[in-house]
């Protein structure tokens, strides 16, 4: 039997290799199908992740304050609580401290932030000019800047009194004008360390904003943990944003799955049509094999084996192309690199093999039922 199996492999190989143009057409069909399938499913996996990050762009979704919202917390307190946040889901965490300051006798609110973290938790801040890079530099809120005609590059002095009623003042260089569409537009935004140095008072935080990719259930869980472990603190999920985000996400995912389903059935029809043409073209060959004494079952099995090879090959190529396609879509739509899902490749190959075989079944059965006398007459 092994000699015959070897010959069968030889026949299948030559059928695929020596009928190259035909093979390429069929392979192209299967590959395109597998590519579309692979990239859509990859995107299905990735879209919630990507969009989660997009939604994070709209600000913090967990805010730490002193329990009851009264009083200030220390950095140590915050860091202890922040240790509960899952590191891999944490986009950023910035402490904030507000102080009343004056400039030329006029009162303003200054907010001290960690600029580096603020860029992560509040990526929607638009800065005209540049972000502060060193001590003594600041951002002016757009409303303030308009009122007192500040432009990037100008300097100003902020002064005030600390809790001990001691006077302080410090000169700042405005590196940029920030517009957020929120309260920050009316603030002077300086670095937390400058604020601590200027007031001579350290380790006082009004609140801290965290941005996480976790869903609302996970956020409530974190909030409960903080409450249990650190009674002096409160972690408030910003629930309104979080829940609407999930509604949008689930709707979008459903939509993508629906589109995948439609594309998959179209692909199947396309592959079936291609296989139909390929098989019908070879009716004479089937007739000849039957005339030589081949049983229908045997001829059919050989064709299905060819279909299987095509399906696996197309599935493999499709996975490779699909990875690039999904990567390109991800890059152009989300502007981010895709996280590859290698476990999708074997699934794509299996689906593509099954689809190809199913697509071959009907045409092969029809071709095999043909009377050899009819196709061999060839008049």
């Amino acid at each position, binding site marked *: 039997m092994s000699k015959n199996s070897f010959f069968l492999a030889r026949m299948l190989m030559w059928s695929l290799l*020596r009928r190259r143009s035909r093979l390429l057409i069929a392979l192209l069909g299967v590959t395109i199908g597998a590519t579309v399938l692979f990239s859509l499913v990859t995107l299905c996996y990735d879209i919630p992740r990507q969009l989660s990050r997009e939604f994070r762009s709209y600000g913090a979704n967990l805010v730490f304050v002193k329990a009851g919202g009264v009083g200030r917390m220390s950095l140590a307190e915050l860091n202890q609580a922040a240790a509960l946040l899952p590191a891999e889901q944490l986009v950023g965490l910035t402490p904030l401290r507000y102080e009343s300051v004056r400039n030329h006798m006029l009162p303003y609110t200054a907010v001290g932030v960690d600029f580096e973290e603020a860029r992560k938790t509040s990526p929607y801040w638009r800065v005209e000019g540049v972000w502060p890079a060193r001590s003594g530099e600041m951002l002016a809120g757009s409303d303030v800047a308009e009122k007192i005609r500040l432009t990037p590059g100008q300097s100003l002095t902020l002064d005030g009194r600390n809790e001990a009623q001691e006077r302080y003042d410090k000169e700042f260089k405005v590196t940029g004008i920030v517009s957020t569409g929120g309260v920050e537009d009316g603030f002077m935004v300086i670095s937390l360390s400058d604020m601590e140095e200027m007031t001579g008072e350290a380790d006082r935080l009004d609140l801290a904003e965290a941005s996480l990719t976790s869903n609302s259930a996970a956020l409530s869980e974190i909030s409960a943990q903080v409450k249990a472990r650190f009674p002096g603190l409160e972690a408030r999920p910003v629930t309104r944003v979080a829940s609407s985000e999930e509604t949008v996400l689930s709707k979008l995912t459903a939509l993508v799955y629906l589109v995948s389903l439609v594309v998959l059935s179209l692909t199947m029809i396309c592959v079936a049509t291609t296989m139909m043409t390929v098989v019908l073209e070879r009716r004479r060959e089937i007739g000849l094999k039957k005339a030589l004494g081949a049983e229908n079952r045997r001829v059919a099995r050989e064709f299905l084996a060819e279909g299987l090879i095509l399906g696996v090959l197309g599935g493999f190529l499709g996975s490779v192309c699909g990875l690039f396609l999904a990567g390109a879509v991800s890059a152009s739509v989300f502007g981010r690199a895709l996280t590859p899902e290698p476990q999708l490749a074997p699934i794509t190959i299996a689906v593509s093999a099954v689809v190809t075989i199913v697509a071959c079944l009907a045409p092969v059965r029809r071709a095999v039922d043909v009377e050899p006398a009819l196709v*061999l007459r060839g008049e």
Partner: protein
Amino acid sequence: MSESARNILEITDVSKIYGPLKALETINLTVPPGQWLAIMGPSGSGKTTLMNIIGCLDTASEGAVRLDGLNLAQLTRAELTGIRREAIGLIFQQFHLISYLTALENVMVAQFYHSMVDEGEALAALERVGLADRAKHLPRQLSGGEQQRVCIARALINHPKIILADEPTGNLDEANESLVMDILHNLHQAGSTIVVVTHAPEVAAHAERVIVLEHGRVVSDK
């Protein structure tokens, strides 16, 4: 019974009816083993239809066909396939070689469906038709005459009881025709039973016996 055992082929009152058309009408024909029979007749006279019935590719509408003692009418489709595999060697006017397989592999295909491939034996068969040096060529790299000789090697490979050739030289020039006839002569000498359909008298002249069909009837048997 002893009579039927002696004849390789016995056709009794066979008709083939296609709707209003009687392609064959009450044909009676007996072929003893080792005979070389030629079937002649104008186009449409039923030669191919008769060959297909003898070759188990088709069944008679009426009458009985006995091939090597077996009554074909009583056999199932699968059993007829088995007879084709075991007892019949087919040679076609259009060769019908598999385009993506070499000459050698085309011969091996017949072995593959019959029992077991044997490359040495297949090569020997090609050698017998003078094509040992063309074994690795694809059909499109072979001339018409060479393709027909591959076809003959394929028909011979499983030692069939009867060789059926439907216009084997119909697509060949004179030189190739005589090459093919030489091979058939050798087969005949070796004891093969051969049925050749042709409308070329010089091809029919090689046979021991010539029957002529017209409108589905045997009009002459010499």
